[in-house]
């Protein structure tokens, strides 16, 4: 199948809760998972392909993902290898703005980006979480992300003891 054709055919995807979204081939190919699916499509090609079901992504999240991939469809996406070497310094302001969302949405976005295999989006969204964690104490992190503290003081002491050899004096 020729995925580099200049025209950009319409593709439909369906969220886990049954909502259908229309987007373009170029956009949807940013997802490694969908790219794999499409590349293995047999006769008939993309034009005749039905809507792609995405069991693990709900409609709210899919809408966000589609917004992102449509914005980035013409940008050259870094490979996972390139992302590996990326330092956390340079972020497109559009992306920065795009990621201004509440934590629930962000978790869903991360899960979706992971499932759909969109390396750049996964990188951006996990970076967002990492930035929130950075320079915070464990207690602050727990209250920020609403995590239950399941350590007992005795356990903490044991872990600290175990790690003592590498603590700074």
């Amino acid at each position, binding site marked *: 199948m020729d995925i580099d054709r200049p025209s950009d055919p319409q593709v439909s995807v369906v969220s886990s809760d049954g909502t259908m979204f229309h987007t373009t081939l170029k956009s949807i190919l940013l997802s490694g998972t969908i790219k794999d699916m499409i590349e293995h499509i047999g006769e008939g090609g993309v034009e005749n392909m039905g809507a792609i079901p995405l069991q693990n992504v*709900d409609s709210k*999240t899919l809408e966000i993902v589609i917004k992102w991939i449509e914005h980035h469809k013409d940008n050259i996406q870094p490979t996972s290898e390139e992302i*590996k*070497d990326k*330092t*956390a310094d340079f972020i497109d302001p559009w992306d920065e703005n795009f990621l201004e969302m509440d*934590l*629930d949405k962000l*978790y*869903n976005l*991360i*899960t979706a980006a*992971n499932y759909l295999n969109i390396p750049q989006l*996964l*990188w951006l969204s*996990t*970076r967002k*979480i*990492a930035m929130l*964690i*950075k320079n915070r*104490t*464990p207690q602050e*992190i*727990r209250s920020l*992300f*609403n*995590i*239950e*503290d*399941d*350590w007992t003081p005795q356990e*903490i002491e044991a*872990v600290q003891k175990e*790690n003592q*050899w*590498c603590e*700074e004096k």
Partner: protein
Amino acid sequence: MTDNIINNLPDEVFLEIFNYFNGKSLKSLMFVCKRWAEIISGHASSMKKLPVNMKKLLLDYNGNISHNFHTLNIEHINIFNHDLHDYLLISLGRSVQCLNISYCVINANHLKSLLENLIHLNELAITKSRISDDPIIEKVNENEFKIKKFKVTHINNNILKYLNNIQVSEMEIIDANNYKINHEYLIEFILRQKSMRSLIVEELNNNVNSLFLTNDLKHATFRLKKFTGLFCTNLTRHEFFNENLISFLNVHANSLETLKITGSSLSPNTYKFSISHLSNLYMLELNPNSIPQENSFYKNLPKNTNLKVFHIESTITRTNINGVLQIIRHYSNISNLMFFDTDEFISNDLFYAISHELKFLLNLSVLNFNKNFIPTHKIQILNSFSIKILNDIDQFLNFITLNNTLEKINVGWIKRDFGEEIVEKIITQPRLQYIKFGGRFIANKRIYEVISRDYKNLRTLELVVNNYDDIKNLKFIFPLDRNNFIPKCLYFEEFNDREPLND
């Protein structure tokens, strides 16, 4: 979506997140909750990415991997895995000469392979790190390889066991006992050495006898060829220590040039042995409180003329001066003497002995002059004098006027300001070529005028300024070269990055 807590995210996503942090931060993140701790400790070895700090280290400004790393520091990484290992080898390969590993858990095979492949490695330091538990030791290439300096600090016991094919020429073991270094491995390691020249041991407390021979090691085997320097500090006195040290010294008596045993006391026998048998000794550093004081002890000792450098580690007092004086008599060729402090009753006696016994003394370094000290005896050919703290200017002036052979003077800190007539006296010393002063006084403009007008042979003026305002003044008076005074070098410590001020 019903359940929207962060901990519903899969492990692989957490790994993505945790990859932004270095080992030290990860340790703190372990205390957020057990899930995080499990991911960090359990999956640590399968993390695909390098910690961000490693990446920053390895990337130069263009974002490319630099192949010209001279020194590589690996810190806070408890995921010393295959990827990191390969990455280091591929990207750094042959350029690294110094490798510092600290706060790491290392797989023995990776460490060995890394060391063997960094073929230009010259210095290795391992600090507060350990070999990961139960490593499966593969038979990797067992060729011996050499590094020059090897330093271990606070390491967990078994690293040395796995480094059985390294040959080092200088080894330093610091505070090993604190982290229960296994002395068996240490001894074995040292015994394997064929060309170790220097061994520095600090603060070994228990089992120190095993370092200096045990019953099950034959004396003859504990011989290091070309071994020239032993430095021990804070060795707690141990039953076998002196005995073992003597046998060690005995084996190396003909090669040992440097002996430094500080912070611990030697038995009279050990001491006697070191000053009578170590015929090649060039440098000796001792605690005066640990040496015998009775004259009888020194009576039949043969003179030793090889020793040139003698450092006295702690305050010379009425109770230990006799030993010091005896040593000075014994080693009459000392050219370089350094002592810290003297008590007020003995400083004149000490200087008398120095001027009468040490005919070849060129360099003298003291902490300060005692207030009772009156310079009356010239040290014959004294060339260089260094005093850390200067209290009394007249006393100092008398001393340098008396010792008119001085070419170099180094004053660490001058307590009080002094005026032009004193500067004049200092710089008109006939042979003085070099002065270094520290303290605030040098901002004084007049002093420059005096120096530029009256200096004789002065070639180098080195100033250590500790006050920003002083620099201002210095700048103001600086065009000294107009008056033909051209300082060879002029240092302003700590202020090199300040903007130059206009006149």
